[in-house]
């Protein structure tokens, strides 16, 4: 019985791993192909099935005038926008989450839960709903096609995530902890940053991770709200999608775009293993 369970367990894990890895392997293989190797028949292994070429990768750094896309600048733009927006969202979101977790708010029929739901409900709106209003909004305040404008929009996108995770997290931090700090002579701000914050690092890491992921993978707002000054990575990559789709460079860019976040995966896993995140996620 136990042996059977172990066998099934490892089988399932192996199958799932194969399922997860398969598209990446396919992307790696495809990124070294050319038009011929993609379009005439199905090929898998370089040298054996097809003659590999680095063209797909070269396209990513070449100038568009020579048929490339030059993703270097967009890459750094994406990192900058994602990190800045995440940071601001985490700061504002954590403050709000702390308030919602610790204090009682009443205004008419509105209670804490309603305010929390208001925050989270922002995630319900599909980007398409907001894209046009945001366009008008940003053009009114003169932030279209700017990093700042994108950051403003991403804050709306990311703050709900930060609030959601941090409210949960703070609800699990005994409120006696902050009460003790108050009694020990801290005013509420001091209690927050001297005591609550240092003990919320796991929560902040998870919230930060989710913010970074959801900021990094956004395509729609970056697409609608930028023109020539600022370009983000996903938009640039999608712009590879010409009438003849260059599967090879798309594959290469897919691999490159996931790379920085794999680091995030390792960080999260490390904290998970140490058990530090346990309290962070509900």
């Amino acid at each position, binding site marked *: 019985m136990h042996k059977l369970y172990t066998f099934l367990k490892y089988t399932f894990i192996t199958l799932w791993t194969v399922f997860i890895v398969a*598209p990446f392997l396919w992307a790696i293989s495809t990124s070294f192909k050319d038009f011929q190797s993609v379009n005439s028949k199905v090929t898998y292994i370089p040298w054996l099935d097809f003659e590999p070429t680095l063209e797909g990768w070269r396209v990513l750094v070449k100038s568009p005038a020579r048929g490339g896309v030059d993703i270097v600048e967009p890459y750094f733009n994406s990192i900058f926008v994602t990190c800045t927006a995440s940071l601001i969202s985490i700061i504002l979101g954590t403050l709000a989450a702390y308030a919602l977790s610790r204090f009682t708010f009443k205004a008419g029929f509105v209670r804490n839960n309603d305010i929390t739901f208001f925050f989270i409900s922002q995630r319900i709106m599909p980007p398409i709903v907001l894209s046009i209003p945001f366009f008008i909004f940003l053009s009114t305040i003169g932030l279209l096609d700017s990093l700042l404008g994108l950051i403003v929009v991403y804050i709306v996108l990311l703050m709900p995530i930060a609030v959601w995770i941090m409210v949960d997290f703070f609800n699990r931090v005994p409120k006696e902890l902050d009460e003790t700090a108050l009694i020990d002579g801290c005013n509420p701000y001091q209690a927050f940053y001297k005591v609550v914050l240092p003990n919320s690092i796991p929560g902040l890491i998870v919230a930060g991770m989710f913010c970074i992921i959801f900021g990094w993978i956004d395509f729609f707002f970056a697409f609608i709200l930028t023109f020539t000054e600022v370009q983000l990575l996903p938009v640039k990559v999608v712009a590879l999608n010409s009438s003849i789709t260059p599967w090879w460079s798309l594959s290469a860019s897919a691999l490159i775009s996931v790379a920085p976040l794999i680091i995030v995966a390792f960080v999260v896993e490390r904290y998970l293993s140490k058990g530090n995140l346990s309290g962070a996620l509900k």
Partner: protein
Amino acid sequence: MNFKHKFVFLFPGLFVLIGILIFPIIFTIRLSLSGWNSYTPEMNFIGITNYIRLFTDDPRFWESFFRLSFLSVTTVILQYVIGFALALMVWREIKFKRFFRVIFLIPMMTTPVIMTVIWRTFFHESLGPVNDLLGNIGVKPILWLSDPVIAKFTVIIVEVWQWTPFMFLLLLAGLLSLPKEPFLAAAIDGASPFRKFVYVTFPLMAPISIGAIIIRLIEASKIMDTVFVLTSGGPGTATETSSFYIYIKGLREFQMGYAATLSFTYLVIMIISLTIIAKVLTKLMIKE
């Protein structure tokens, strides 16, 4: 606790959010009462004409909505079941634990709109590896993207691949934070693994599960990039979802006023149904 300081904590975030959102929301509502389109880009007032059109003469929207419900509920259930199973398996000691945990997390780090392009080549009916490999064992080409029924499941496969890690992470973290005592008690009672799961693990995980399911439902209901890249809503309208339909009406056909009507209606329906779902789940999963 109740201090006036509480407002200093809440208001920056709240007001930033409201400040950024108030205009878009009012704008959307106003836009939904106008006939703004590509040829008359004006904020004229046409009353509830758009709403009448939506409720009396647009079966495609409602079809897309029910399709969306099917897709998001199915994917979220699959993600939950698989994510829970995976989390249980790498919860306790297992060989290469850390390796598996990292691997299981990675799909959600990929940009859907880019990754789905890879999936499209992957499921390409004549030039993709899946049908080719299946062909080697004698399976006829499966119409992954062009059969109205199978295409839905292809979308589900891709969504499950992308977002199961999200469930997995939340549930694994939940498992790791469970108190040890109930498990000790169960072990002393000599409960079988199955009974232990049903009577100890699952009830303890119920609140976490509800949170994770609701958040995933919210996210899954926005499903659009996948459909857009994978099938463009086709074949026919077989994989069109609400947000993709709104996208078509808004940014392809440029019926801005009508798209705003769809958006607003969609939003209201979603908020109501998610509230109900949250209530029902709480009833079902948490025994008083």
